[in-house]
């Protein structure tokens, strides 16, 4: 049940000439979960549809499942499980009918079909909903039914297009954890589309960050966050402070003071740092005034003005200073760091 996926030079151009995806190479290892992350309209769904077989790549593109060329196989013959953003449950069938639909198509005898449907419902913990109409389900329940339906046919790969986007924050968090556990225990190759960077980092074994029809970087969540290869990736994933100043004598001079800057060429520079790479420190060398404080529960997010040309975001777990107070900031070693090329 673990099938590696490879895309070779897969591009996609719409009938009206809109290029939704530049020719792209991508491989997903067997049993791996890849998160496709990017802003709206960047081509995530397009890429997923090419893998599914719902769209054909432009000439020259090639989709391989387990080394086998499946470019010419339509979706119904690729044995993929799909979960759509809108869930796309069949309104004329009940929950069990939906989950068993793929098995019915595959002519699994009714007895065995019922047993497998029951197993899927049990796995998703929705046994009691078996005979419910799908319009009588909550968003989270629909999501589980959609997942059960896709997994019931034991697909070679699982493709999920923004499966959690339609849910409210609390439920999204809960289902994210469940989904992570499920993907891990099934060891199924999965591609997961999202525009939520938190979701991508939490669920993906690897993350592919897309922008305007192109993959900008593929890497582990850690790599994507800590070693972004382009300025876009750096700013799209997580919060990024951009500091404009001047490097001289190993110091990065800013309006509110300075920060250490080793290994950066002297002259005007734009350096970056993550909120958690800065801390409040009375002996810090950079001073600013608190403009706003947002209590997040486990920590407080502070917006500091006056330290740099643009406000800096800092997070603290200690008692937070009030807006208007003057604070001093210190940076972790290696911070701020030079930005990758645009």
């Amino acid at each position, binding site marked *: 049940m673990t099938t590696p996926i490879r895309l070779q030079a897969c591009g996609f151009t719409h009938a009206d000439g809109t290029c939704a995806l530049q020719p792209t190479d991508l491989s997903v290892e067997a049993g791996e979960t890849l998160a496709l992350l990017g802003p709206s309209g960047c081509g995530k769904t397009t890429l997923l549809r090419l893998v599914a077989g719902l769209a054909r790549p432009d000439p020259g593109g090639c989709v391989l499942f387990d080394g086998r060329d499946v470019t010419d196989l339509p*979706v119904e013959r690729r044995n993929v499980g799909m979960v759509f953003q809108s869930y796309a449950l*069949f309104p004329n069938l009940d929950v069990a009918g939906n989950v068993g639909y793929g098995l019915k198509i595959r002519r699994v005898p009714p007895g065995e079909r019922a047993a497998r449907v029951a197993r899927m419902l049990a796995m998703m913990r929705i046994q009691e909903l078996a005979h419910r109409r799908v319009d009588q389900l909550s968003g989270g329940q629909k999501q589980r039914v959609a997942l059960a339906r896709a997994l019931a046919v034991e697909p070679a790969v699982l493709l999920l297009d923004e499966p959690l986007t339609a849910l409210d924050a609390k439920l999204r968090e809960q289902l994210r954890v469940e989904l992570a556990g499920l993907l891990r225990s099934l060891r199924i190759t999965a591609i997961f589309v999202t525009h939520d960077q938190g979701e991508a980092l939490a669920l993906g074994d690897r993350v592919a960050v897309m922008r305007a029809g192109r993959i900008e970087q593929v890497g582990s969540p850690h790599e994507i966050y800590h070693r972004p290869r382009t300025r876009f990736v750096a700013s799209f994933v997580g919060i990024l402070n951009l500091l404009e100043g001047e490097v001289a004598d190993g110091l990065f001079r800013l309006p509110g003071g300075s920060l250490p800057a080793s290994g950066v060429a002297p002259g005007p520079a734009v350096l970056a740092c993550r909120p958690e790479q800065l801390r409040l420190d009375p002996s810090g060398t950079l001073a600013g005034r608190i403009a706003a404080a947002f209590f997040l529960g486990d920590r407080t997010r502070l917006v500091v003005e006056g330290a740099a040309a643009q406000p800096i975001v800092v997070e603290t777990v200690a008692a937070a200073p009030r807006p208007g107070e003057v604070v001093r900031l210190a940076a972790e070693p290696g911070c701020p760091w030079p930005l990758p090329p645009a």
Partner: protein
Amino acid sequence: MGNDRLALAALVAPAIAFLIAFFVFPLLMMARTGASGPDGLATYLTILVDARYLASLGKTVLLAGTVTLTTLAIAGVAGVFLARHRFPGRRVLTAFLTLPLAFPGVVVGFMVILLAGRQGVVGTIAEALTGERLVFAYSLAGLFVGYLYFSIPRTVLTVMAAAEKLDPALEEGARSLGAGRWRVVRDVVLPGLEGALLAAGAICFATAMGAFGTAFTLATQIDVLPMVIYAEFTVGANIAVAAALSFVLGAITWAVLAIARTAAGANVAAAG
């Protein structure tokens, strides 16, 4: 509260008065007229056992049923196609499709004669090909063609409206689970269009049951129920029978519409 009721009654009263004056009253009058002949209420029995009336009734129902099924098949395919595909001339074609709606039955009958009458296009082509003139304008077949001509447009429009609302993700979902083209049509498209097809089919059936102008134009050998009613009324001056037949025609059509509506309602309820 009392005021609200009063206001509601005041608003509903004109509608009820209208309903009574123009619907219930004439209907009762007609039902009574049906029983006013020499046979009294037995007139209703007579028309249900008389071979000629019965044959006419059977023919009319059969014709209306066939027209309905054929229309649904053609308009279903055409409607989904038109809703799904964008091509040059699509808007013109769609606008053109509504044209027959503007013609009275007489004109449609005239067109059928031009098409399949003694000097008709079909006859000429058939003669060139087989040596025999094909003339069917003046038979049930001619009526069938005429009814199709004005049933298909409105059904296509209804189907198009319903097909635009089908969620393409449902079809893609079915395909991703292994369903081939025909499976998708059977399991997703048809259930999705069921309400529209039932509604359009019911209207189509009712229209074909009661249409008169076309039959009257093609005339002579066609004894569908509206024609028989006309004959009884004018030629035979048999007003009681004409009224009884009208009542039966209305009852059957109404029953079919009611059944279709119930089926559609049950289906909509099941489908959500």
